[in-house]
């Protein structure tokens, strides 16, 4: 029934879009965009089920406060979360997802845990990852905030579900699905034992004690970074014991930490902003969640001067210049610079309710270290995402954690499910992965 429905919608005008994406996935990157990863025989690779759970606002600071009763001192000492919370993901997720001290903005109908089926393999060139998880919704999270024409001007439309405007019903919850990995090779203090929690702090978006935009922009570190909000960072980049957001070290000190490898790799596969071009993004966490050098596959589609879109859909490819609310999640509505986009034309007779994506995606324009993850692809079928993802071994960029044969790395996983961002993810405790080495999960060597 459902697939019939979907097919009809596709036929309605998105066939060229699909063809375009298909075209690009098979022609880019000097061969297949999925070179290597498409050939992996996953049935020969063991599957590990990882419980991802809702973490609420359990920040670095909360975990070290007396409110984390009987555990704050141990946590300060660097004790592993699983020393106490082993096998408690289910219990914790279900407790934290409903309203409680650590969840002031509960999302209606949210599930506390997600089972992630995870596989990992490698050969002489690449590491290969495969993720499978069930989405809460019976649609793929391929929609992402849009610009909507209200009859007079273009206004932001669609927000993540932790936002007040969505919880108040003023805006629909729209945000892409994601799968993220955070990786360390042993150089970040406490990551092996406390995983992603070393990067989650008070002051960050959707966390407690958020500073105002003005306060952030007034802070020396953020001034230097030209940032308006606080995002993931490592305690090593702050001067005080509590690792406060506003106590940044100097640029020189931070550069020295980076040069010594004291950062985390963080990359995200994105249902709207990277998947349609067969990619995942590539960031690293240090004093902020920074993009790797070069250019990621997505950028803003908002013309800052006119507040209008920069690009619109190419009618000859998509069958229309903009989409409507009925189209989203039934077809891929990603605006891809090289396949289905043309410069925005203000003189078109725009109708109220016309939607144009807020972001522009491009595989061709992505470059440098930020474009390393250029072979990932997710397919959503029967309520389940299956994402395969290749990453080169032995990368030499100064903002990557090079994976090499014989190496053991600590990984943390997270998925953003059901139109949500920031801390609204389901996360894992840290675990080690070995590529030809003893670890919690040992990657299968392919020949």
């Amino acid at each position, binding site marked *: 029934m459902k697939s019939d429905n979907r097919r009809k919608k596709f036929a309605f005008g998105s066939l060229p879009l699909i063809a375009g994406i298909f075209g690009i996935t098979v022609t880019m990157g000097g061969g297949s965009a999925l070179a290597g990863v498409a050939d992996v025989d996953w049935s020969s690779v063991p599957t590990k089920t990882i419980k991802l759970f809702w973490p609420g606002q359990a920040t670095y600071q909360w975990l070290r406060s*007396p409110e984390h*009763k009987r555990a*704050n*001192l141990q946590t300060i000492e660097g*004790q592993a979360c699983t*020393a106490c*919370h082993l*096998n408690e993901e289910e219990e914790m997720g279900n407790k934290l997802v409903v309203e409680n001290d650590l969840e002031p903005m509960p999302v209606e109908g949210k599930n506390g845990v997600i089972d992630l089926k995870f596989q990992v393999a490698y050969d002489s060139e690449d590491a290969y990852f495969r993720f499978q998880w069930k989405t809460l919704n019976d649609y793929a999270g391929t929609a992402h905030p849009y610009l909507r024409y209200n009859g007079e001007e273009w206004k932001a439309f669609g927000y993540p579900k932790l936002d007040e405007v969505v919880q108040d019903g003023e805006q629909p919850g729209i945000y892409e699905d994601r799968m993220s990995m955070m990786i360390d090779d042993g150089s970040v203090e406490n990551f092996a034992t406390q995983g992603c929690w070393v990067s989650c702090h008070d002051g960050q978006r959707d966390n407690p004690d958020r500073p105002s935009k003005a306060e952030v922009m007034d802070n020396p570190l953020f001034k230097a970074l030209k940032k308006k909000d606080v995002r993931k960072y490592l305690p090593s980049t702050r001067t005080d014991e509590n690792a406060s957001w506003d106590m940044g070290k100097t640029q020189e000190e931070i550069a020295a930490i980076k040069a010594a490898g004291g950062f985390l790799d963080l990359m995200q596969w994105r249902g709207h902003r990277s998947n349609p071009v067969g990619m995942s993004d590539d960031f690293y966490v240090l004093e902020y969640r920074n993009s790797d050098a070069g250019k990621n596959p997505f950028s803003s589609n908002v013309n800052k001067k006119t507040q209008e879109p920069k690009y619109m859909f190419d009618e000859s490819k998509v069958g229309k210049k903009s989409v409507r609310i009925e189209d989203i999640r039934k077809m891929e509505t990603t605006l891809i610079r090289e396949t289905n986009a043309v410069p925005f034309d203000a003189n078109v007779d725009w109708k109220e309710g016309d939607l144009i994506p807020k972001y522009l995606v491009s595989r061709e324009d992505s470059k440098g270290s930020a474009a390393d993850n250029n072979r990932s692809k997710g397919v959503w079928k029967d309520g389940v995402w299956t994402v395969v993802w290749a990453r080169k071994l032995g990368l030499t960029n100064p903002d990557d954690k090079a994976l090499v044969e014989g190496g053991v790395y600590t990984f943390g996983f997270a998925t953003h499910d059901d139109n949500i961002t920031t801390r609204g993810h389901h996360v894992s405790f840290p675990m080690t992965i070995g590529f030809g080495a003893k670890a919690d999960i040992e990657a299968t060597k392919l020949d």
Partner: protein
Amino acid sequence: MDIFFNLFKYRRIINAAIAVVIVLIIGWIFAYEPVTRNFIAQDAVCNYCHLDWEFNPDIRLTATRPHASEEAPIESQPSCVDCHLPEGWWNTTYAYTHFLSFTDLFGHFRDRDAERAGDWIPPRAATAYRVRDRMFEYDGNTCRTCHIESEIKFKRDRGVNAHKLALEEQKTCIECHNNLVHRPVDVRKDAFKKTDSSKE
């Protein structure tokens, strides 16, 4: 002469008296600890000096919560000495030396100079630090009179996991179960550092 004669004459009575004294002494030796713990060093006596509403869970405005469980009747709560006065005959004496403000309940003389030295911290915090230090030093001996580590029944996995860790790393009760019943006092940063090098 008369005296000896008289003593001889009353020897039965004297023997009886000596026997009584011996019995009394022995009785007192046996009774010393239980009588002290249960009748003399009662909570009410402790609260003669220590504020009721700060330390008694059943007083209005109390800062202390009941131990066993919120529902358990107040009579079944541990008394002050259960948690603060280590078991043993000799240790019992420290109840009395404490009443005289000579020692704490572990038999350490008060170091009034040290109590006043250093940066100012709230007196309550300073006292809590000292109590924790002792409970750490004596490996939670007062807790262990009721709780047998290997027999604790846990409600959640985290209890099982944490206690496995406690055994492996030889951590004692107060390292995790601080702020147990009284008004919360932050744990100071370098609390619970073993002085010897056995712990890395």
